[in-house]
């Protein structure tokens, strides 16, 4: 809430500014920035700014009309825009709907809520709503309720944060996995590049001569090394996965099938070649039967040295070369065979590469499945552990130990209460016991001290009662009664002892 003095200033400010105020009023926030922060003043300021932009084109006639007149004109011009904007906002907002607005007054610590109920079917302006204001003072809300509200709001915020953090964590994991995969791919590409470079170097070094056997051999050697490296790279650790044997078997089957396909292709090629040679022979025979010559071609048999099975093919070829003129020289046939072999090898290598790639993909999938299964196994393990603990608890409950303990506790409480109730009786009994023990001791002591005194005492009393005073005087007894009383002390003690014995 503003001070009345400030309100007065505000009212003055709301009036159109005079001409003298304009130079400094271009920045209206300079003079009293803190007092001009209300929504209405801000709106007016905006309107003035807009008006300033609009009126910049007609500043020349500003000298004639006053600023006040300009302000009114600008306001009039802006009014349709404002209405249009308001209508546009109304169209954007869902119609025929209740609205609730709230604001908090920090200075007074008051929450103001306004409830807008549409009075017409299609409300167009604020006047079409029935407004109900509700003000709640913060000091009237119990601190515990405020704490509870903040706690619930905090929980909502923390839940959102936790969700976002989880998503972030998952994304980070995915990113890490992708990075690792990229690194692997990069390493693989680098290895391939190196291989290509090595091959290029060999080709450059040895020359691109298809008939160069050394180059072919070097290539084959490198091929073998590559194969070994690839096999080593794809080799699955023994402890990695239980399906390793399955993959190896699958790969072995694939190799066998590929070999069978290769053999089948070679067989077909051989059959084709055989068919071609048969056709050529038939054609030659038909030509000969046509009349040129009726004699069969001379059969040349080299009888000098039979070909040995252990000789290398080149040697055999060299040996067979002079025997017939139709055989091809070895220097022409070997390179083509080697190139064919090389091509076949390269093709086989590519096939194996493709298979290896496929196997790697399968391995990746299997690893993924294995990870999932590992996770599920871990979860199951945790569940089993929890279930075991639960079973143990249930077993303990089955032994009724808790029941027994509770029962014992209750019973002991009752016993303690009963002891408390009976305690003064117990104390009484203990005093009785102490007295009885003491009495027995005294009885024993008295009886010991009495001895046969009671019998003697009776006789003494009898003697005293049967003597005269003179006789007693000669015996040294001046007073009979007093002497008898003294003697009767013995009898009294005996009587007391008997009484005590009886009472205890």
């Amino acid at each position, binding site marked *: 809430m503003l001070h009345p003095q400030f309100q007065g200033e505000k009212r003055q400010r709301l009036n159109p500014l005079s001409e003298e105020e304009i130079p400094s009023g271009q920045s209206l926030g300079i003079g009293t920035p803190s007092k001009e922060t209300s929504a209405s003043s801000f709106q007016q300021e905006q309107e003035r700014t807009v008006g300033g932009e609009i009126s910049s084109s007609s500043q020349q006639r500003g000298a004639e009309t006053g600023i006040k007149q300009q302000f009114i004109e600008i306001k009039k011009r802006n009014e349709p825009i404002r209405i249009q904007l308001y209508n546009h906002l109304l169209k954007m907002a869902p119609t025929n709907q209740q609205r609730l607005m709230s604001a908090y007054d920090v200075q007074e610590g008051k929450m103001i809520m306004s409830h807008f109920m549409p009075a017409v079917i299609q409300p167009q302006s604020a006047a079409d709503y029935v407004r109900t204001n509700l003000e709640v003072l913060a000091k009237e809300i119990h601190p515990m309720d405020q704490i509870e509200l903040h706690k619930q709001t905090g929980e909502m915020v923390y839940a959102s944060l936790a969700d976002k953090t989880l998503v972030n964590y998952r994304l980070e994991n995915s990113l890490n996995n992708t990075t690792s995969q990229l690194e692997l791919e990069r390493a693989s590409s680098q290895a391939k590049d190196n291989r290509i470079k090595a091959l290029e170097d060999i080709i450059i070094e040895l020359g691109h001569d298809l008939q160069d056997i050394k180059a072919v051999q070097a290539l084959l050697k490198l091929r073998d090394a590559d194969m070994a490296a690839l096999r080593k790279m794809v080799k699955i650790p023994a402890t990695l996965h239980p399906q390793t044997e399955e993959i190896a078997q699958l790969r072995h089957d694939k190799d066998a099938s590929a070999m069978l396909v290769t053999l089948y292709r070679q067989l077909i090629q051989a059959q084709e070649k055989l068919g071609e040679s048969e056709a050529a022979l038939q054609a030659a025979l038909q030509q000969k039967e046509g009349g040129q010559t009726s004699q069969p071609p001379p059969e040349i048999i080299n009888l000098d040295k039979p070909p040995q099975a252990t000789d290398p093919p080149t040697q055999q070829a060299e040996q067979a070369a002079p025997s017939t003129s139709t055989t091809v020289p070895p220097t022409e046939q070997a390179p083509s065979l080697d190139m064919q072999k090389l091509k076949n090898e390269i093709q086989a290598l590519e096939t194996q590469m493709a298979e290896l790639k496929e196997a790697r993909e399968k391995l990746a999938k299997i690893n993924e499945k294995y990870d999932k299964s590992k996770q599920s196994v871990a979860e199951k393990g945790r569940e089993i552990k929890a279930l075991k603990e639960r079973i143990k608890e249930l077993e303990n409950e089955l032994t009724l130990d808790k029941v*027994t303990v509770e029962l014992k506790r209750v*019973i*002991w409480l009752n016993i303690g209460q009963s002891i408390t109730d009976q*305690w003064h009786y*117990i104390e009484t009994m203990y005093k009785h016991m102490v007295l009885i023990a003491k009495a027995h001791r005294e009885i024993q002591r008295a009886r010991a001290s009495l001895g046969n*005194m009671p019998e003697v005492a009776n006789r003494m009393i009898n003697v005293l009662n049967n003597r005269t005073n003179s006789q007693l005087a000669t015996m040294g007894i001046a007073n009979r009664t007093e002497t008898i009383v003294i003697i009767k002390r013995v009898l009294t003690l005996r009587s007391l002892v008997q009484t*005590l014995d009886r009472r205890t």
Partner: protein
Amino acid sequence: MQTEVSKFMEKFLILHNRGLPGLLNSAGRLLSHENYAKRVNTFATNQIAERPSTSEDTGPASGHNLFNRVESLFFIMNEIKHLFDVPPNFHKYSEADETLDAILRHQLPTQEIWARLIQLIL
């Protein structure tokens, strides 16, 4: 009085054999109620905290087993409420104490007087 004390002692001995802590200290004196309550509380706590038997050892507990576990306590709880058929009082105690006082206060004739009186019957 001796009969009542004996009866009490007999009953309490039975309770003691069933597990109720003794009433006397090492010197043979009766404990104060506070100390005896502490003794009972400690004993009960130890008994409750004893390692419970598992089902592997004994199998599922039956009602009979449960009864055996707490039978003595039930016995003590019931018997201690009926420890005294008639609540003891101090009537007989006072009489006996009075007699005992009389005996303690009583004085026999001295040895000298008694030796002189003996002369009467000689």
